[in-house]
């Protein structure tokens, strides 16, 4: 948006449209041209901002001046005063600035304020089962343009110029992928969609398929035209029944209306697609494995080259794009590459959807311009920690292939390049926020359990290596860590990265490497002091009540399943160490943070056994 001197944000909500936005807009456009300002000032139509009674309304950036009750008659004066002479036109300025709305406005709530909706353009607005409502929001206009006015080369050029990159993880340029497949010569080519969203903590693809299935189909039609494909497959996880149902319904509607099938929109171009249900294997998110899976075999990756653009599904040239990538194709074709580049950075253009989860207040799905600082996403949009008393510790990005970004790096802009520098990856956009009560060694172990389980078993370094690392991490979290374990883990990680065939193995060690990089002291405390400072590893901690903080409220004693906490009312309590099983209930319950977590203690284990027997 920087290219323009000023942006006019005109409300296109129902109320303002009814009171005349379209006419005023046309008048302003005409006036700007008359004054030769059309290249300096840009009109953007926005959603409703709640001032319907004052409509039509308009917000002028960068000055943030709010105009109300615009009329066509006032337009020439307004343009002359404000945009030519540079002084706000007071007559139409919003007067009653103090007038507070009882219900907050979109712009008052950071969760909404910082978002821009492109991929999620129809979220919550249309009925996903109604093709007509999709069409009402410019649906299939991009497909019509691509099929009738554009050559495959034009489409590829538009996508390349826009700088669209794959939203599934690695960020490979989509236009380039299409170009490779377009140049391959074959009797049959395949346009595939990857809806096998597997990263734990990411659910943007599910949401897009559920809320706006046609946006994916339209993207595929355009892609199919670009590469010259007549057959497509959407590969969806069987665990997403609602997404499957809505996609199937959308496909049926398209066939009935001739938007899929022979001679689409009378353009002579034919394309049809079907849904293929995944059977639950994380590795099938890898493109060659996904194609093997559609062929009905074990989903194991194979070496590349040959790349799928030359030999993919059934050995025919194929393109596989992720759901979110496809959902942004239609508006890009319709509005052009410059529009796409208005958001984001040079190398990471456009917007990105993130799934915010974990210990964060506003759990949800958000879309922001690429390059938005991580801090804005977590604190403004996400609303900070769910438990206000707890401190932020880390945010995990990129799922099992990603890493944990610590607090000191929270100012980074979120782009493919900046995230990779931290040791994490953009991945599909899952952001799992963790507060100070999260043990980073256990977190690394959690991801290793995942990858060790999901390794397809083809390459030994991945199959055996992840298992060995998992065993080492289990030992560390259970008090059997040894001197040199950290170095061994790092060595093993680098070997696995260097010698695995596919993305799963090459990235599986990332969670370990990134937690060692930023939280090495935690590993050391686990190994040397047998101390898990968060109390998550129950073999490596002990709990004690600090007497000067304890108010004697008794909440901890009531929470303790062992009856290990004793004390008089309103006097400091204490924990009978021999009975304590380190379940952490007292720590979670205490409202005064009087419970301290120390290193493991030698204790008489028979005490617990005797107590159990008594019961």
């Amino acid at each position, binding site marked *: 948006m920087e290219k323009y001197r000023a942006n006019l944000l005109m409300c296109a909500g129902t109320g303002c449209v009814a009171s005349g936005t379209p006419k005023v807009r046309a008048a302003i456009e005409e006036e700007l041209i008359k004054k030769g300002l059309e290249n300096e000032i840009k009109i953007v139509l926005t959603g409703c901002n709640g001032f319907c009674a004052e409509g039509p309304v308009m917000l002028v950036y960068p000055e943030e001046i709010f105009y109300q009750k615009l009329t066509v008659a006032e337009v020439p004066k307004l343009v002359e005063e404000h945009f030519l002479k540079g002084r706000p036109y007071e007559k139409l300025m919003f007067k009653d600035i103090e007038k507070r709305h009882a219900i907050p406005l979109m712009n008052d709530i950071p969760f909404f304020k910082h978002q821009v909706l492109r991929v999620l353009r129809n979220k919550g607005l249309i009925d996903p089962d109604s093709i007509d409502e999709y069409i009402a929001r410019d649906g299939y206009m991009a497909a019509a343009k691509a099929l009738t006015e554009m050559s495959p080369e034009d489409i590829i050029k538009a996508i390349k110029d826009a700088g669209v990159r794959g939203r599934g993880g690695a960020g490979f340029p989509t236009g380039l992928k299409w170009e490779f497949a377009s140049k391959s010569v074959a009797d049959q080519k395949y346009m595939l969609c990857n809806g096998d969203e597997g990263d734990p903590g990411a659910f943007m693809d599910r*949401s897009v398929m559920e809320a706006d299935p046609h946006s994916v189909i339209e993207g595929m039609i355009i892609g199919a035209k670009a590469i010259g494909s007549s057959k497509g497959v959407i590969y969806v996880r069987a665990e997403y029944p609602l997404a499957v149902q809505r996609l199937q319904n959308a496909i049926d509607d398209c066939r009935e209306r001739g938007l899929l099938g022979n001679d689409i929109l009378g353009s002579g171009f034919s394309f049809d697609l079907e849904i293929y249900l995944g059977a639950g294997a994380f590795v099938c998110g890898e493109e060659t494995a996904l194609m093997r899976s559609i062929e009905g075999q074990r989903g194991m990756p194979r070496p590349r080259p040959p790349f799928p653009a030359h030999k993919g599904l059934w050995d025919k040239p194929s393109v596989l794009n992720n759901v979110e990538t496809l959902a942004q194709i239609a508006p890009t074709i319709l509005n052009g590459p410059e529009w796409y580049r208005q958001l984001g950075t040079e190398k990471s253009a456009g917007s990105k959807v993130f799934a915010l989860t974990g210990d964060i207040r506003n759990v949800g799905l958000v879309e922001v311009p690429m390059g938005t600082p991580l801090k804005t996403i977590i604190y403004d949009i996400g609303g900070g920690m769910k438990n206000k008393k707890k401190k932020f510790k880390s945010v995990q990005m990129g799922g099992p292939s990603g890493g944990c970004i610590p607090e000191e790096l929270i100012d980074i802009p979120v782009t493919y390049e900046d995230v990779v520098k931290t040791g994490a990856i953009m991945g599909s956009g899952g952001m799992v926020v963790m507060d100070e009560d999260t043990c980073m060694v256990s977190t690394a172990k959690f991801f290793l359990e995942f990858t060790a389980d999901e390794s397809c078993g083809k390459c030994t370094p991945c199959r055996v290596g992840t298992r060995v690392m998992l065993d080492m991490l289990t030992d560390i979290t259970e008090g059997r860590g040894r001197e040199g374990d950290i170095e061994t883990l790092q060595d093993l990680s680098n070997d696995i990265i260097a010698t695995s065939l596919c993305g799963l193995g090459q990235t599986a060690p990332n969670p370990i490497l990134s937690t060692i990089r930023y939280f090495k002291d935690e590993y050391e405390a686990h190994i040397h002091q047998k101390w898990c400072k968060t109390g998550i590893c129950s073999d490596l901690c002990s709990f004690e009540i600090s007497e000067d903080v304890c108010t004697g409220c008794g909440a901890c004693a009531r929470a303790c399943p062992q009856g290990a906490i004793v004390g008089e009312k309103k006097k400091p309590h204490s924990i009978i160490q021999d009975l304590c099983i380190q379940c952490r209930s007292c720590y979670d319950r205490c409202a005064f943070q009087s419970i301290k977590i120390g290193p493991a203690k030698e204790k008489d284990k028979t005490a617990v056994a005797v107590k159990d027997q008594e019961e």
Partner: protein
Amino acid sequence: MAKLTIDDLKKIKEKQKATFTLREGGSRAKITVHMGTCGIAAGARTIMTALIDEITKAGVEDVITTTSGCAGLCAREPMITVELLNKAPVKYGDLTEEKIREIFSEHVLKGNPVEKYALVVGSETTY
């Protein structure tokens, strides 16, 4: 049904826009229940049932109910959006059956948004 041409697309777009924006559709209010997997698990179906029940009871015919996908703020599901003719849409969150009945009679029928349950007024900008 006959195959669509590009002209048909434009016609559908215009026709739908009319009903979409309530103006020419003859409806006074539109209530959107956000029904993604999260919303349904959080109880969106109960909300929908209660809503339909209220509409039947009130015997109003100019209120449309429709379903839509996730509204994005999973933490506050189940959510609905209530839009009255020529008024800003209002989003409600953390709904229960009792709350929806109150919202229906106060906001939809009488036109007064229920402040205590409302999350936000207005709609998001799509670029």
